[in-house]
């Protein structure tokens, strides 16, 4: 098994090198990338637009700053990536390429993939291919290893049947990484495989899911006798959980803000607070002088600043081995609880004046955003799962008893009412 990257992304470049890099990036960005419309929702970028932005980045050598040169990356360091993101804060970037593609899916392909499979990463960096992860299932909840979607070997192909859900942006993707069950006679973690799936194959159906805010970023997929070539298995057959675990690690890094592969947008402390809609809400309600409102503004700003400082610290600690990688769960947890609190603060600041808004005004209304508040504590692994991981794997506390732990998967009970499905 090879390592994720073949160069040292944790090397600390000297200041002069970084400043040179910053100056070049600044100049290149101004000439090549479209300026950011701060009101635009990056989830609305179309497939073609994402690919166009990615192609532009690639032409400048910026699409995979921390990826090795052999797949078309720049072979540089976290520091270069951070500098580039700082400079790119006011430009439009191919957000969907960065997440999940480069930050969540590419690393396990680099780690477990054959040379041929790594070509997928090169194609992503060139802006030619967009990837989606397909892990969750309608009946599965947080229990990804309980996958019921099955693939059965038939000569040179695997025949895929079942369905996946919560695949972010699958309707824009060309390929997917799918966790499937390939052996039902062993305990659940030991009968899984990871498939690289061409979504244009016959039998694949992708539907969008409408969320409570009307967005349709998430998708549900159905697989009906899809014939997947054998060479599309990533890692060893029945060892898919090992691959999935690495993918989940990178997902936590990415959602928590600690990934060196996605395009995050650092904001200066002052501008983020001043520019946030909280200050806007207080201003519209004429409550700038209200001590109660001011307390909430102060609290929200502190939380936001501390969250960024936590990301720096934990990323550094994991990179330098002070903390184990699972510490990334702290970032994911904090992202969730901070967003949750922010949603409540916004609603409190909005007050009765925020209970209604003009028809057709499609700005972010606190009362409407409040309806979606829990999404920040569910997507990318629930906060409950993060707390399990932190207590069990970071603090070493006893694991939760799992009724399905050492039983063959086809003997595990899946609901109060249902009989086993197989």
């Amino acid at each position: 098994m090879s390592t994720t990257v073949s160069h040292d992304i944790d090397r600390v470049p000297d200041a002069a090198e970084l400043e040179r890099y910053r100056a070049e990036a600044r100049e290149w960005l101004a000439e090549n990338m479209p300026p950011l419309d701060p009101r635009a929702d990056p989830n609305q970028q179309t497939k073609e637009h994402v690919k166009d932005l990615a192609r532009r980045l690639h032409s400048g050598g910026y699409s995979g700053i921390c990826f090795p040169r052999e797949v078309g990356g720049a072979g540089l360091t976290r520091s270069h990536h951070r500098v580039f993101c700082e400079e790119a804060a006011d430009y439009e970037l191919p957000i969907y390429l960065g997440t999940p593609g480069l930050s969540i899916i590419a690393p396990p392909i680099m780690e477990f993939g054959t040379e041929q499979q790594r070509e997928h990463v090169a194609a992503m960096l060139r802006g030619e291919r967009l990837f989606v992860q397909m892990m969750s299932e309608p009946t599965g909840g947080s229990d990804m290893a309980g996958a019921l979607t099955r693939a059965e070997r038939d000569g040179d192909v695997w025949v895929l049947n079942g369905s996946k859900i919560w695949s972010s942006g699958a309707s824009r993707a060309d390929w997917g990484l799918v966790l499937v069950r390939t052996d039902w006679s062993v305990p659940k973690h030991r009968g899984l495989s990871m498939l690289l799936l061409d979504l244009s194959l016959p039998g694949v159906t992708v539907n969008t899911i409408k969320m409570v805010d009307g967005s349709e970023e998430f998708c549900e997929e159905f697989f009906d006798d899809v014939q997947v070539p054998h060479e599309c298995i990533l890692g060893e057959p029945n060892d898919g959980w090992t691959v999935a675990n690495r993918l989940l690690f990178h997902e936590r890094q990415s959602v928590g803000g600690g990934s060196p592969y996605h395009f995050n947008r650092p904001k200066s402390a002052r501008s983020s607070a001043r520019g946030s809609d909280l200050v806007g809400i207080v201003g519209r309600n004429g409550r700038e002088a209200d001590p109660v409102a001011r307390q909430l503004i102060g609290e929200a700003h502190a939380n936001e600043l501390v969250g960024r400082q936590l990301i720096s610290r934990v990323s550094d600690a994991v990179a330098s081995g002070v903390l184990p990688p699972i510490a990334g769960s702290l970032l994911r947890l904090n992202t969730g609880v901070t967003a949750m609190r922010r949603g409540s603060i916004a609603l409190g600041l909005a007050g009765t004046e925020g209970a209604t808004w003009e028809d057709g005004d499609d700005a972010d209304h606190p009362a409407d955003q409040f309806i979606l508040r829990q999404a920040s504590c569910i997507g990318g692994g629930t906060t409950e799962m993060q707390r399990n991981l932190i207590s069990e794997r970071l603090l070493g506390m006893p694991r939760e008893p799992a009724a399905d732990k050492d039983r063959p998967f086809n003997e595990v009970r899946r609901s109060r009412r249902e009989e086993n499905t197989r």
Partner: protein
Amino acid sequence: MQLHLDDDQSIFVDTTRRYLADTSDIATIRALAETERGFDADWWARGAELGWTSLLAPERMGGGGVSDDAVSDLALIAFERGRLIAPGPFASVNAVVAALATSDAHDDLLARLIAGTSVATLAASERGVRWPGPGVTTSLSTVGDAVEITGEKITVESAAVAEAFVVLAAGPEGDRLVVVPADADGVEIAPRRSPDLVRRFADVTFRDVRIGRDAVLELERSDLERVLDIATVLQLAETVGVLDRVLEFTIEWASDRYSFGRPLSSYQELKHRFADMTLWLEASKATVTEAAAAVTKQPEQAGQYVSAAASYVHEHGPELVQDCVQMHGGIGVTWEHDIHLYLRRVTLNSLTCGTVADHRERLASMILEGAGR
């Protein structure tokens, strides 16, 4: 919600419960979301026949409670409506009926409200003013034989279909409630959207609106607050109904749903959250029941009881529903799952008829300055 109902109350509640079960399922609510007024006029009128709008009317017009406490009777209906997130301006219309019952100048309007053939709603909230005042800026002045109203009200329910508004305005002798026909010159209605899918609101501007003097209900501040407290407590009872239903189906879900080979409800951390939610719900039922009763039976304490209930229910209610969303995981934030409809109602209710902050400030003013009735 009340622990013990007498026979008349049981019949009264059962009738509404059956009517709502037959007419107001979730599919109907989703369909109503696409309509302009959010509720069906005939449906409302049939609800009125069941007593939804008449209990606070004067006896001469057939009003009066099922028990000796009409506000508590209506709170029972509000609770049932909450369980099915039924549409219609229930709390606001009943507050208007309570207001109009203090005069005989508006009996025609009152009769239509009782019959459910018309609606009239409260116009009390203003930008930058804490519910229920002090500090109302909409002005009431006398001009010859008439009075003139000027100001802007927000979150006025069902404004587009209302026949009249009962407007909270500051007059020369203090705050008053004034009955303003929706079609009077100078009334402008600007429709607004809310998080709720079936309840409709507008900002209403009154620009030098001139109407007859008998439009002014001569209520002192304490009687005026009684009207607002009725709206508040009925809305709270509706919220408690929503919470009751949401916790019920979420507990069921947690028992049915297995994760890692065992039911969600076997996970201690979730069990403890369900224990907290059960406490919040039971305490909410306790405080709203007592607040509703206080309006009639302990009028000097009613303001305090209503604001304490609002502080408690609006603090814990939205959190309870959000926690139930969290228990559902991903499907809890999809459009297809019904839980967001309940969350929308609870969220809306926590912002109209005063926020948590408004009611806490009101309690503080009672405690620190002896304000309120």
